[in-house]
């Protein structure tokens, strides 16, 4: 009877999870997704909790309480810190899988060796390797994103790095095969600890050569791993709900990884083993042309006379906390009947979709947010392209400069607009360390300074100007 209840609960939860993801296809229905997800989770947890073999309720209550105490503050982080939080939650997911796998193995070893069949031990080994490498890998990624001092931001590389990395993983898998063949030998427990150690090490080694520009891809890949480790846990515990939910998470991570890789014209192997951000020497593009600087008054005038303005935001906008000023600028311009659109590059920000969330927080309607592929055909009609803190995603060198690290990466065609206004903090090159010829184009005018201050001045200028008429 309780078995049937548990099965029905699992089927119900699965259906709710699928509906939850389905409702994410439109911002209008998206909030139902959370309701469905929470309901599915509640059903699954209660059905498990009331199984007769669960006797230690105090421990469960305490662990759940602790989860609330840590989880609630983690949900209140500023939106610029969402990538770190996401990486941290992948780490927690990996840790849970790794620990449950370890517990199940030693439970089998000490209590019930008959349960350690070849298939089950294989699943446990897969769960533990995936779980612990996701744990440390995601912690490293979170540390890099949070810019923790003792984790280097720039990619760390050394000769033979890929051989070492693959060697560590192969060693872990090889020891895994040994444990599968001899699950109950006197030394199997030690070998199992070695597998855990190698997985922990591999997670760290995997992330240290990866630079900041690749973080959106890396987070997506780790998302996929976290899902797969939940799948492996499902195999170990013979639980189909875990397999389904893990597969949903894994496929989501997979799709996002593919989208991110395409958006940077890179392959998986290239992201994981290519150490982006180290090879590039600054590619000299033609003769050194000079910047042309524009005043705030001049820029305001250009904007006022436009009929289509496309704003191209980059992570620099979020760093400067300029999104609320951008909203004021949006108001000033739309008030004058000017169409304002935001061109969003898939890798703008530090995780998939990050820029959309940052702009939505500033109350910019999502109907004004346009994907790169949709905005590019309109760029020749655009009167002013306003580049705020974006660099590599508007660099025309991506189209032709072979040998440049961004060569082949799809870009937003800011250079095709009639006029380009670029707000830049300093004259230094961007994340990938490449010069950007967009800034020295004939129709480009630069506004140097902090994005928030510059846009604030523009808004003031526009507001003041309209007061005179």
């Amino acid at each position, binding site marked *: 009877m309780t078995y049937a209840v548990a099965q029905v609960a699992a089927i119900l939860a699965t259906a709710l999870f699928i509906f939850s993801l389905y409702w994410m296809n439109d911002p209008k229905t998206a909030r139902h997704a959370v309701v469905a997800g929470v309901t599915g989770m509640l059903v699954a947890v209660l059905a498990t909790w009331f199984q007769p073999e669960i006797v230690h309720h105090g421990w469960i209550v305490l662990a759940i309480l602790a*989860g609330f105490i840590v989880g609630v503050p983690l949900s209140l982080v500023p939106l610029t810190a969402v990538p770190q939080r996401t990486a941290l939650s992948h780490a927690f997911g990996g840790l*849970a899988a790794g620990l449950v796998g370890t517990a199940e193995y030693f439970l089998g070893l000490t209590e019930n060796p008959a349960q350690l069949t070849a298939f089950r031990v294989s699943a446990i080994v897969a769960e533990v390797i995936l779980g612990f490498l996701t744990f440390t890998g995601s912690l490293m990624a979170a540390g890099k994103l949070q810019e923790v001092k003792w984790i280097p931001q720039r990619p760390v590389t050394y000769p033979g790095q890929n051989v070492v990395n693959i060697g560590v993983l192969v060693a872990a898998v090889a020891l895994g095969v040994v444990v599968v063949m001899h699950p109950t030998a006197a030394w199997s427990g030690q070998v199992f600890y070695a597998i855990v150690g190698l997985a922990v090490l591999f997670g760290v080694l995997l992330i240290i050569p990866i630079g900041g520009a690749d973080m959106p891809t890396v987070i997506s890949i780790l998302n996929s791993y976290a*899902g797969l480790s939940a799948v492996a846990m499902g195999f170990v515990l013979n639980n189909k709900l*875990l397999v389904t939910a893990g597969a949903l998470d894994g*496929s989501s991570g997979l799709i996002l990884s593919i989208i991110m890789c395409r958006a940077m014209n890179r392959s998986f192997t290239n992201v994981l083993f290519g150490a982006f951000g180290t090879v590039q020497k600054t590619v000299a593009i033609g003769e050194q042309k000079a910047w042309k600087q524009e005043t705030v008054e001049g820029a305001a005038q250009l904007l006022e006379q436009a009929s289509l303005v496309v704003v191209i935001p980059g992570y620099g906008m979020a760093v400067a906390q300029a999104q609320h000023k951008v909203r004021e600028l949006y108001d000033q311009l739309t008030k004058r009947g000017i169409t304002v659109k935001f061109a969003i590059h898939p890798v703008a920000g530090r995780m998939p979709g990050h820029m959309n969330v940052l702009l939505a927080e500033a109350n910019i309607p999502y*109907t004004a947010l346009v994907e790169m592929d949709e905005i590019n055909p309109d760029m020749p009609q655009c009167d002013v392209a306003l580049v705020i803190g974006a660099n590599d995603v508007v660099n025309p060198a991506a189209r032709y400069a072979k040998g440049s690290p961004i060569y082949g990466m799809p870009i937003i065609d800011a250079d095709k607009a009639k006029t380009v206004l670029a707000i830049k903090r300093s004259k230094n090159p961007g994340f990938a360390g490449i010069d950007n010829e967009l800034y020295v184009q004939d129709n480009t005018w630069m506004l140097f300074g902090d994005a928030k201050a510059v846009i604030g001045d523009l808004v003031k200028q526009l507001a003041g100007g309209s007061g005179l008429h």
Partner: protein
Amino acid sequence: MIDPSMTATAQPAPPDYWSMLFVFVLATFIGLGVIRRVSRLLYTPLMSLTNAISAIAVVGSIAVTGAEYPVTIRVLGAIALFASMTNIVSGFLITDRMLKMFKKQ
């Protein structure tokens, strides 16, 4: 080398791993189909949502923590339960917080 305990212990019906594999493959295809239709605007909340959903690992942690097992095993389970619960709570809350911000006008 056959461990004598393997034959001695009464074994429950072995789990049907083939049907698990079957479920995994089907669920992956459903996942790919559904996720492909997710609005590109919502990739960040999608990731926090799928995070929370895959924290369904909590059911495994509850089984390990709450059953009549040796204390060390249950401690591992309790830590895993805490980690999963953190993901559930923060994942769903932050997803909702972000989704609330997406307004048409």
